């Protein structure tokens, strides 16, 4: 009878029910869409960072921050073969980093040198190019320290300049060399690299692969992305905070509307509630009856909201959202993010939206049930 009365009341007072349905649907959409975008951002950021930094990284065991020019990983080609046996879809990249002094026309600047297999020539950042007064076609002289502590000098022809914020040439202050040139600067052999980065499709299997690789290469320091990117959670917290703040603003606005609507609704039915109390309905019975109605109406609101969220997410998945629009958490990232649906979190949002409606209905409900039956039966307040 309680549930039947609740459903019939929600239909009888259709307009007020509709307001609550709309409020809850908006809350659900706000929470689920923001969560979908947030999850998509996390996943995009994670993939971007992993592609940049590697899902698994090989480094020389004795490497120290100030000595990294000295130590290297040798037999790079052999290592690649072994890695491919364990991770067949691995994308392996050997890298060399080295400090260097770049000189032209008596002007010098300390910079970092990055090298990748696919860099065919010398790429210089725009800011560095301006500082060196260099342009495409010029030759810059690189002074470096080789592995024996001696001076090495390498001329490098500027193949092209690149704009700021491009990948690892931070702020444009950097030079990207072909790996062979970096090796010459460091005095390294052909099979030597500073580190090896491995990427693959199933990034969540990084720890499992790392364990297997450690058994094969006991003399090399091997770390998975989970071991290296320990502060990634902080980055995601910033993203979550932004998304949650937006959803919270919507929820607070909705709370006020729900409370006001429920208060108007119970006052409109004050006489019915007074009648129920006079024929022996307890306060708990009346409270249950009204809250069941709120839950029923909210449930409909969450179902509509979830359907809308699903449509919105599907729509956003078609084109993605440009990363800059998300709030510039990682300002050098490029590309789009694609929202993701996490069913468990969506279910939690549904429950939360219903609980939220119940919480904000409690004041009006308690106000009316605490009223003396004789006062509730009066025609006016």
């Amino acid at each position: 009878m309680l549930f039947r009365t609740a459903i019939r009341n929600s239909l009888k007072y259709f307009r007020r029910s509709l307001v609550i349905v709309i409020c809850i649907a908006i809350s659900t959409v706000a929470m689920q869409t923001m969560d979908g975008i947030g999850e998509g951002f996390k996943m995009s950021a994670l993939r971007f960072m992993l592609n940049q930094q590697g899902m698994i990284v090989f480094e020389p065991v004795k490497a120290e921050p100030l000595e990294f020019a000295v130590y290297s990983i040798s037999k790079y080609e052999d290592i690649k073969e072994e890695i491919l046996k364990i991770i067949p879809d691995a994308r392996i990249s050997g890298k060399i980093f080295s400090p260097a002094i770049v000189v032209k026309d008596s002007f010098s600047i300390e910079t970092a040198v990055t090298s990748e297999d696919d860099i065919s020539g010398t790429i210089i950042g725009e800011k560095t190019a301006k500082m060196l007064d260099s342009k495409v076609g010029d030759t810059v002289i690189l002074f470096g320290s080789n592995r024996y502590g001696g001076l090495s000098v390498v001329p490098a022809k500027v193949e092209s300049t690149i704009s700021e914020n491009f990948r690892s040439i931070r702020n444009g202050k950097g030079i990207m060399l072909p790996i062979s040139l970096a090796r010459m600067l460091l005095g390294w052999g052909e099979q030597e690299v500073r580190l090896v980065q491995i990427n693959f499709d199933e990034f969540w299997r990084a720890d499992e692969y790392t364990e297997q690789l450690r058994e094969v290469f006991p003399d090399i320091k091997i770390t998975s992305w989970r071991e290296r990117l320990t502060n990634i959670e902080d980055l995601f917290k910033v993203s979550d905070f932004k998304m949650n703040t937006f959803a919270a603003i919507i929820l607070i606005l909705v709370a006020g509307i729900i409370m006001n609507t429920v208060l108007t609704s119970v006052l409109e039915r004050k006489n019915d509630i007074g009648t129920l109390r006079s024929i022996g309905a307890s306060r708990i019975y009346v409270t249950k009856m009204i809250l069941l109605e709120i839950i029923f109406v909210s449930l409909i609101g969450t179902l509509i909201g979830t359907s809308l969220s699903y449509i919105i997410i599907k729509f956003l998945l078609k084109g993605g959202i440009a990363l800059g629009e998300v709030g510039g958490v990682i300002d050098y990232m490029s590309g789009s993010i694609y929202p993701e649906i996490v069913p468990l979190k969506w279910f939690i949002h549904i429950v939360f939206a219903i609980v939220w409606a119940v919480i904000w209905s409690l004041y009006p409900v308690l106000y009316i049930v605490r009223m003396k039956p004789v006062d509730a039966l009066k025609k006016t307040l």
Partner: protein
Amino acid sequence: MLIQMENVKKDYALGKTTVHAVRGVSFSLREGEFAVIAGPSGSGKSTLLNLMGLLDVPTSGKISFEGKDVSSISESEATNIRKTRIGFIFQTFNLIPVLTAFENIELPLILKGKKEEDREERTKRILKETGISDIASHKPDELSGGQRQRVAIARALVSGPDVVFADEPTANLDSETGMQIIKIMQKLNKTEGVTFVFSTHDTRLFKIAGRRLELRDGRIVKDVVQNGNKK
């Protein structure tokens, strides 16, 4: 004695002034009585019924229900007594609009926790006794005033209360229907032995009651036992 009122007063604050709705009323009601509280509007009839029906608490004085002082009992205790011992009939019928006549009548039995078969059997019986079996599936807004009041009577009686309070039950009905309603109440008083107390300012109905309490300005000015009843 079913109900005993001893120097019961009820004051209301109306802005800065105090309204003395009931001013020291004392009387007793026996089981099986069919009493009318008569008086003009504003004489305190409804307030007195509300106090007797434990819908309100007195400002001072003592109300006893079957010898137990109920003047200052808790709200939950009062709810329990209303649920098990008291029935109400209102001037404006006060049926729950979303429930059918059957469901409205069944409601007090649900509140009492009766089993479904028992509820159905009792509800059908009272529907028959009040002559409204044919409208059981109708909702209040599909019923006439007289039919609604019959449903209200059935609802008040279905759980077998000791006493039924009816606040101007005929005020919203035409005189013929009003008389029919009072006669149904009178019949149920005789057959079921339920105590009825109803308020009215319709002088035609005064004569039917076994006892007439006349109220003026919150005081009982006349307490008449009639139609062969004993005080």
